């Protein structure tokens, strides 16, 4: 968890460009039943919507922590979207981004800052 950077909106990104949502976020969403992922190759700006996570109760967009191109998407979520609940930091990753401006990584939150924000604002 500490090897990655975070957005206030609960997405994480690893140095290799893998993006997912935090454990805090998956708990807030509850049982996830469908994940709508972007097309591979799509260009995104930092903060753009990448897709939609659907839980039983609600639909939530997720956003790109950095600008770049969608390099890969997690195809296993088509059949098993619950991976996002079960392993939000591992097999429940969402997409991999090839950053176009790696310096943007430095603008993101570290884990401790994110965790404090999430705890404070989450309820």
């Amino acid at each position: 968890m500490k090897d990655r950077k975070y957005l206030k909106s609960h997405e994480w990104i690893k140095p290799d460009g893998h993006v997912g949502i935090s454990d805090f976020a998956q708990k807030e969403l509850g049982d996830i039943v469908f994940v709508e992922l972007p097309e591979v190759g799509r260009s995104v700006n930092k903060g753009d919507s990448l897709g939609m996570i659907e839980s039983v109760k609600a639909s939530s967009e997720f956003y790109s922590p950095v600008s770049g191109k969608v390099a890969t998407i997690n195809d296993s979520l088509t059949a098993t979207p619950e991976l996002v609940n079960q392993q939000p930091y591992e097999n429940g990753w969402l997409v991999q981004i090839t950053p176009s401006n790696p310096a943007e990584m430095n603008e993101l939150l570290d884990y401790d800052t994110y965790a404090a924000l999430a705890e404070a604002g989450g309820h």
Partner: protein
Amino acid sequence: MKKTPLYDEMVRSGGRMVDFAGFVMPVQFAGIISEHLAVRRNAGLFDVSHMGEVLVSGKDAERYIDKLVTNAVGKLSDRQVMYSPMCYDHGGCVDDLLVYRFNPERYLLVVNASNTDKDFSHMLSQIHGFSVKLENLSDQYAQLAVQGPKAIHILSGLTDLDLDNIDFYWFREGLVNGSPSIVSRTGYTGEDGFEIYCRPEAAPAIWSALLIKGSTHGIQPCGLGARDTLRFENRLVLYGHELDEHTSPLAARLNWAIGWDSDFNGKQALAQEKETGSKKKLVGLEMKETGVPRQGYSVYAGEQESGVVTSGCKAPFLDKFLALAYVKPEHSSNGTELLVDIRGKKLAATVVKTPFYKKPPISRLTDSAEGSRSSEA
């Protein structure tokens, strides 16, 4: 924000509390899917103390309620329960409710929490010419629902009532965990089960006793999330979704809950709608392309806008993406191919028969063995 008498038990049981209809209520405990499946397979326990209760008493009670609601209240026997919409003169719904008859001069009306105040005002406005007394007793009743095929086995040791003698939509008064209660064989899940009305101060002990007794039967505490998905699979309508002041019981296919022989509020409007046909019809939709249909999403027949989704989710027990929707009558027959606009993408859906999930028959303690449902299925 009001707390129900079970608030502390909800928090202690791990409930995630949210604001709903002016109350702090649990939306979930272990998780909506897990709770939903527990009710279908074993049992679930719900705090539904937020529901409103209005006592109607007096010599004209029967005549008054028969005017107030669409269903034929005159057909009720003592200790019987009836579901009914309650309409405005224009045929739209004030609410839908349960009518409990103690005797012809004493009834309890159980209404939706979000509508309690509105309903009570409406009821008072209709009182002219009737010798009845109305009392809003919502704060004097706690309500628990124990639902699922194992519900009868869980409740049986905790009450002096013979539960086999309470048929679907009947009730008895007796002791639950030593406290005077009303026990009805009703629910909002599409399963067998009971609803228990008790004094607020007795509710926490009843909650705990049911959880303890139910632990060997796979009971789970359940929140409003599972309550919604369970009622949805069984196509039980929810006010604010399938019903509102602009929607008639006929459009919602509640014809069975209209007693045409009595002179109820809205009868003229509904009779006319019956004659000319409803402008919209409630249907079930099954998504043919993957997507989660949600309330408010538009439904199309080709290029033509046909209606709107009222409730939808990935149904936890049936494991399908399903919706309830109002569509034009010409698009309402089973098998009709429609499209649901999910955030700008029109995804294919088919009109399917409802209820999506059919309520199984009630279980009896005297059945050979617990779980005998498999032999009935």
